């Protein structure tokens, strides 16, 4: 199979105030590849993710996604809203005032109502949550909220999906099941993804390839 390079990150450095936490971070991901980034808290792994998403401006490095230069040497060329990057947050960040359907359809509002409905149904089926369109986030369990958040992030068919400690607020049993479920969904949709986590077992099980940040450097493991 022809391998297409989807994401290139070059020379990413992260510093908090005057404290250098990550230096010369380099990463290349093929289309559909799932990568896990391990590290202790404060190692800069979450900040790296935010930088790739274009949410954080204070660092340096370049990001190329699907051949397009999104960030050039610390300068974001493309704002987060038009990068085609999706993200699933640790606490899901579902909009509490919108029901599940509205949450998922939020990123595809340029489509017709009919198309949106179909896409929402399709995604809910994919994450195994049919028939909860009218429910509000506070009526759902943690695992359900997480899967809705995943569906919402996948709705616009992002070129890259970022998962920021996405499973860490769930209990062990649900965590493993959900991680497997999400991996299946990503593989089915051939979505390129990065998971940030501090759990090595989760990283190994979820990803095709993973790396650990140690002493400000990325050490890759196969």
């Amino acid at each position: 199979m022809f391998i297409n390079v989807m994401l290139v990150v070059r020379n990413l450095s992260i510093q908090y105030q005057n404290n250098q936490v990550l230096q010369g971070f380099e990463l290349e991901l093929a289309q559909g590849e799932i990568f896990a980034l391990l590290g202790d808290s404060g190692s800069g792994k979450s900040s790296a993710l935010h930088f790739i998403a274009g949410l954080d401006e204070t660092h340096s490095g370049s990001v190329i996604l699907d051949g397009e230069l999104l960030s050039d040497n610390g300068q974001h060329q493309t704002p987060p809203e038009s990068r085609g990057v999706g993200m699933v947050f640790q606490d899901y960040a579902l909009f509490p005032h919108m029901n599940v359907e509205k949450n998922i359809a939020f990123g595809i509002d340029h489509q017709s109502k009919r198309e949106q409905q179909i896409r929402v149904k399709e995604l809910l089926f994919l994450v195994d949550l049919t028939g909860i369109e009218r429910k509000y986030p506070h009526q759902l369990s943690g695992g359900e909220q997480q899967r809705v958040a995943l569906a919402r992030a996948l709705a616009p068919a992002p070129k890259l999906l970022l998962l920021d400690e996405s499973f860490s607020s769930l209990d062990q049993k649900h965590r493993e099941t959900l991680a497997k479920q999400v991996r299946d969904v990503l593989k089915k949709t051939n979505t390129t993804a990065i998971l940030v986590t501090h759990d090595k077992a989760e990283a190994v099980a979820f990803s095709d390839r993973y790396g650990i940040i140690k002493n400000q450097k990325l050490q890759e493991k196969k």
Partner: protein
Amino acid sequence: MALLVALPIFVVAFSWVLPKHELWAHFFENLLPSLIHSTVILLVGVGIGVTLLGTVLAYLVVMVEFPGRQWLEWALFLPFAIPAYVLAFVYLGVFDYSGYAQVWMREALGLPGFDIRSGSWAIILTFVLVFYPYVYMMARASFKRQKTNMIEAGKLLGASPIRVFFKISLPLARPAAAAGLLVTLMETLADFGVVSLFNYDTFTTAIYSAWGDFRSIEVAAQLASLLVLVAFFLIHFEKKARGQAKYYSTNVSNKKPYQAHGAVGWLIALFVFGVFMLSFAMPMLQLLIWGWGAVASEWSAKYFDLISSTAILTLSAVIITLMIATVLALPNRCKRGSIWLQSVIRLATLGYALPGSVMAVGLLYGINQISAVNIYFGGESINHIVFGSIALLLFAYVSRFMAIAYSSIEASAQQIKPVFTQSARLLGASRLKLVMQVYLPMITPGILAGGLLVAVDVMKELPATYLLRPFGWDTLAIQVYELSAEGLFERAAVPALIMVLFGSVLMLIFQVLDKHSSKGA
């Protein structure tokens, strides 16, 4: 306690047991139709205006980084310190036909002059510039509590900043903005100073006409009770607007989700600065020009008395109001089911919609009724003891300003998740410990905001203070009124400036406390 605070409301409501007055026919025929029409236009216009301006400004200072943001965030509170009628007075002086702005327009640009007091737009704009801080303040606090990752999620799903504002941030801030809007509308309903200067007729005009022109305190009270009814519905709708949604959030980050660079940043700065100029800097400049020449003749030792009276009344009123409002806002959460309690609290907060002097006279009539009962049972009238006592004046303040303290504290109490209560109780916390260590720290921002609002409002309050104060307890607001009513604007600027100075100091204290409390959270 809430029942006691609602005393003036009851007095006003009971006016209906009095016989109907022949005045009603005249009012129905000649006054009420046009008054109701103009009142509705005013409320709608002011409502839309303050909501838009207040939330947009709050959103900009909380969510966007632009040049000058840090000091503008605080400067936007300052118009609060200027009494509404002083601002209206300055605006008329500048923008009416004979004002500098129009003279310049006619002479330099050759444009035709116009009467800004005809129609409704000018008075609506004035009210918006005077009252936007209510919405701004509440919406700002709410935006600050919003999780930034909610906005980041919106951005990554492709939403533009404007869409994020309308679809995510604004709906989340709705309860707070609605509370600010409610306060604004009640203030607008109760206002007499600004509407008199513009000679714009509202419902309050009819109340004053019944009382002042036709000497019928009964019809005035009956009309006032209609005003209270309107306020009652407004509160009801506000509660409805809050709906069932439970917006709990924590995880506040200090990072601004948006950075406005270059021209956009400067445009935003220009807009925010423009609002600040119009609502504070320009009126202040005018007051300074007036006050500069008069300060030598106006300043005297008397001002030490004025200042200390104002300070003591303000502080006492703030403390009492906050204590009662906090107690009312807390059990309300636990006894959610008690309709009785909720209605009483609602009644206790209606005083805000009553014009100050109607409420003050209502209070006197209430005391008089108590005396009458007392005399009936062989006792003596208490009127002469209670009238003109500080206690009665403070009571009036509490009654009138309970609404702002309460709504501000309640908005913040809405953020307390039930799990906090549950977990604290499971950890064996007593009721007292629960209140002192869990509730109070969590609603501190609301208490601070409410306290500031009450302080500034008490400081500016005129009609009730004017009628109820004890001998020798003149305040700065009274001095401003007495001088400006006689056309001595230059001299009136001196006490007005002192008031603004005090207001600014209060704002400064609030800023320090606010920063402290948000660090602690």
